[in-house]
């Protein structure tokens, strides 16, 4: 069975979705990802969907779910590399994925996570000091 690899880069996890998603695969991904966030105490999750040509409401909901789960586990989710045609389709479908942060590519996504981690560290430092 297909499995979606989860790579660790520093304090973040990188998930690259390259195959067609279906229920079973989404469940497995959610299981593994939440387990990895806890195990690696990851602070951020990057989901790269640059090789997906078709995104439907199902994947939209799955992305929202993952973002929600990660937030509960204190990790921020950034969806990166959405294709223009996919973005147009999602907007036409009325799915603007509220609550999900987005970035153009993995680099930008990483910067975004790094920045929010730093600002969090700064506020935490102020509170402690």
């Amino acid at each position, binding site marked *: 069975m297909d499995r979606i690899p989860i790579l660790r880069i520093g304090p973040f996890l990188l998930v690259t979705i390259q195959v067609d998603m279906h229920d079973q695969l989404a469940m497995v991904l959610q299981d593994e990802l939440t387990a990895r966030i806890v195990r690696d105490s990851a602070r951020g999750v990057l989901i790269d969907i640059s090789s997906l040509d078709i995104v439907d409401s199902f994947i939209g909901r799955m992305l929202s779910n993952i973002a929600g789960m990660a937030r509960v586990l204190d990790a921020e989710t950034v969806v990166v590399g959405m*294709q223009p045609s996919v*973005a*147009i389709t999602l907007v036409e479908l009325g799915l*603007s994925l509220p609550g999900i942060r*987005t*970035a*153009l590519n993995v680099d*930008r996504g990483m910067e975004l996570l790094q920045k929010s981690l730093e600002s969090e560290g700064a506020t935490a430092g102020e509170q402690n000091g």
Partner: protein
Amino acid sequence: MRKTRLADIIEKYESSLLSDWVDIQTKALGRAGGRITDSALRDNSHDFVQALRLSLSTASTDDLQAPAWAGLRDILANLSRQRAVMGFSPAETATFVFSFKSALFKRLREAYPDDAETLAEETWLATDLLDRLGLFTTEVYQKSREDVIIRQQQEMLELSTPVVELWPGILALPLIGTLDSARTQVVMQNLLEALVAKSADLAIVDITGVPTVDTLVAQHLLKTVSAARLMGAECIISGIRPQIAQTIIHLGVDLAGVITKANLADAFRLALRKKSLVVTKA
């Protein structure tokens, strides 16, 4: 089947018919005559008369779609297309065929001075035939004009959606003209593809050149902004004129969540600040 002797009459009086007809046309065209040379007009007329005679001698006038009429149809279609491009009005184009009536009827009267019944019958056949040919020219004329309009629309579509890079990572999209669904689609696509190509994460959509903003246009703008956001880029809408600001509020369009600025300079300043860039005097 109605058999007509029109072909014989045309053959018999061909040269005088032709010269009469060309005179009538020249007179009818008047000042518009400058657009076409006398020799071209004469050639056109000659071709038409030849083809008409040929078709009449081989086929009945009942069905103009029959293969026997193909030659004449081609001549008329070419003529209409040429004249549409040369800027003739539809009336002037159709006059080419209709003016043939008066020349032809004159010859008919000469051919049947005593036979009123045949004259009436032939006149009716001729007028029916020429009317249909005239309508055919108008149809082709209309069609070629529509082709011109469609081509111009496409050209405008291509011309009107440039995406320019103001700074590395900052794109601007100056919109000019009314936004409809088809154009928004092209605009959106161009902008999103440019965002990827230049790996820019800020885009300024300037609507100074958009004459009116109604709910539909606002909807299109919001869609573009959301699509850009999904790809991880931020959009600023600039160039909102006072009138348009009033319209947007009266229409109850919700632009919350979209950054709007009154002019492009303000939007650019904001974009630079977002990238932590400062412009200073040298």
